[in-house]
């Protein structure tokens, strides 16, 4: 559908209205555990443009959260170790910043929202204290001014009676409210980048819809760029502009969201799309489709994987796939995939039609 339109909206990189604000290059994070070295992230690179929503999608253990956490030096080292890579944010490499300097970035220029708001909020401090803490710290406002600002933030995320809520404790709020407070905290210093790690996974679907809506609206108003990390392809489809697909610590595909869903180029992405049940599918087809299965399970990250990490589960895999890791290549404009057999997948897609 509207292929031409898709390309129209995709001018040459560099010329995008949003220039890169965050550039991750060849990030490699390993964990040194008793069982061995867990190669959680194996050379991941991506760019986030100003004002853009970038989705990072993958299953548990694919390294999507580790990527986000390591960008802000949030992983305890050891056991984690950043083996290589740079994370350039406005010309500075975040990975080499001192503790003091990275603290000035965290919660100020780059904020993060986590999956479980109950565990990321301090249960013995009031909501007000937790929001004002970062405002006082980073913006140097007085207590009173910070309180005023905190109330404004709560109002912004549509919490009723913001003034009263400031004096309440996290347990007094519902899950959706807590996540709103997290968003208010994250946005209180007008960050340029917001990293949201499964922000709605713990929430019910009606609340999820509210929160996603809110995040996108605030993004529009405040102009922050968002990295949205999730396993939910539906959330990605509805919110992201560009998508990075990760598997076993590697980036396997990157594309504009429409291209990714209409023509996935990596067999893993293709398999994921076929494996999810979709709403109203029955209606279209009259009978229930059998879900496409991806055989086997995610590989152990302890054993080094010489070839393509997906090869053991891939129906297209050849001897070469098991031997040599495919490089990430641009197959179509702005559409990258790391696969030796992309042509065969494309042929299959066009074949039966």
């Amino acid at each position: 559908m509207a292929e031409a339109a898709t390309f129209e909206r995709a001018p040459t990189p560099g010329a995008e209205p949003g220039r890169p604000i965050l550039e991750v290059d060849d990030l490699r994070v390993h964990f040194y555990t008793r069982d061995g070295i867990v190669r959680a992230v194996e050379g991941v690179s991506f760019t986030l443009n100003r004002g853009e929503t970038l989705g990072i999608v993958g299953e548990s253990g694919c390294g999507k959260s580790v990527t986000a956490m390591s960008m802000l030096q949030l992983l305890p080292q050891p056991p984690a170790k950043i083996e290589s890579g740079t994370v350039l944010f406005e010309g500075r490499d975040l990975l080499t910043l001192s503790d003091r300097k990275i603290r000035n970035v965290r919660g100020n220029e780059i904020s993060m929202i986590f999956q479980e708001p109950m565990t990321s909020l301090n249960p013995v401090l009031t909501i007000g204290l937790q929001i004002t803490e970062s405002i006082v710290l980073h913006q140097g406002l007085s207590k009173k001014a910070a309180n005023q600002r905190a109330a404004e933030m709560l109002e912004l995320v549509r919490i009723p009676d913001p003034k009263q809520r400031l004096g309440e404790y996290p347990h007094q709020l519902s899950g959706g409210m807590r996540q709103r407070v997290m968003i208010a905290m994250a946005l209180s210093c007008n960050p340029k980048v917001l990293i949201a790690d499964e922000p709605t996974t713990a929430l019910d679907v009606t609340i999820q819809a509210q929160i996603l809506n809110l995040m996108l609206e605030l993004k529009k108003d405040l102009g922050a760029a968002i990295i949205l990390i999730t396993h939910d392809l539906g959330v990605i489809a509805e919110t992201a502009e560009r998508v990075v697909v990760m598997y076993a610590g590697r980036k396997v595909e990157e594309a504009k969201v429409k291209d990714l869903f209409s023509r996935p180029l990596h067999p893993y992405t293709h398999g994921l799309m076929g494996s999810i049940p979709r709403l109203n599918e029955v209606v279209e087809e009259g009978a229930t489709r059998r879900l496409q299965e991806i055989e086997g399970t995610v590989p152990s990250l302890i054993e080094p994987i010489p070839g393509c990490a997906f090869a053991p589960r891939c129906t297209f895999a050849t001897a070469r796939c098991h031997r040599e890791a495919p490089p990430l290549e641009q197959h179509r404009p702005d559409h990258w995939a790391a696969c030796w057999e992309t042509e065969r997948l494309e042929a299959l897609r066009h074949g039966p039609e």
Partner: protein
Amino acid sequence: MAPSDMAPSDMAPSDMAPGDMTPATARAATNGDAETVLEVQDLKKFFPVKRGLLSSTVGQVYAVDGVSFTIRRGETLGLVGESGCGKTTIGKLVMRLLEPTAGVVKILGTDITAVSGRGLRPYRREMQMVFQDPYSSLNPRMSAGAIVREPLKNYGLDGGSIGGEKQAEALFARVGLKREHMAKYPHEFSGGQRQRLGIARALALNPSLIVADEPVSALDVSVQAQVINLLMDLQVEYRLAFLFISHDLAVVEHISHRVAVMYLGKIVELTDKRTLFTTPLHPYTEALLAAVPVPDPEISRQRLILEGDVPSPINPPSGCRFHTRCPYAVERCRHEEPPLIEVQPGHAVACHLREVGAPPIKLEKRASATA
């Protein structure tokens, strides 16, 4: 289980006298078939809320408040709703892991709420459960083979070491596990394999009913499909009745024949899945469907985004429990509780704005609707 020992009053549901509360419900919920495996009538479960030094009861959590439905052999009833709506409690009540406050749960025609102790044993083997977290529901100190054989041993059907081994082997093969897996322990399995193990254990006694509470929610997307396909295959093969509890509407739509939508302890809509997903009649169902993110960026929908949170089940709203969030609510909704009635053949809904026989038109938003 031979149903010959049924009490004479436990007739097939089609012959059932209309109940006092919701006569039409019972009919909508039943398809009038002697093949009924599970029949739930006006089931209630209230949990006391205790406070203070003497733990005096200060209130009740109305977890399940008057729910009725039936499931036939070979049929899957999907139970959807958001957290706290009571869907898991229903699963536990059906399994008799919880004592109901009121109501009837009939397994193959016998009311098991009236049976206790040893008398329950023959019914327990007819109903098995598959849990959300396959890890915490498997004994870490037992080998996989022993886990699957345990129910057989409990019922003296193990047939000694060789016979039991054979049976377990067949079950392992059926759920897609290998023979070598029998000697392994739960921690050595992946999430998907553990769920297969849980399913093998549930199948061991050849039950009539399987209650599956969020069986794929903890699994990765690529593995989810494997388990869903397996459950659907097994259902056809053994003509199992499934009570499939999930918050994931897409999964429920895929696997179910009929779907019940719950809100704050009550079923608000119950019909076949096709009708439910194409012409939902209850405003809550409509909102729930609209809230599910669709994995297709080409579709941009007009969304009905509900405001506010689910109210507390300790103090549920008066009248229709959904009226505080309903964009269509009228005055009547605030005072009078709508019964679940069959408005179209096989389509039951609990909403004042839906009358028997009325066409399924879109409702008009009310300006006066307040929270």
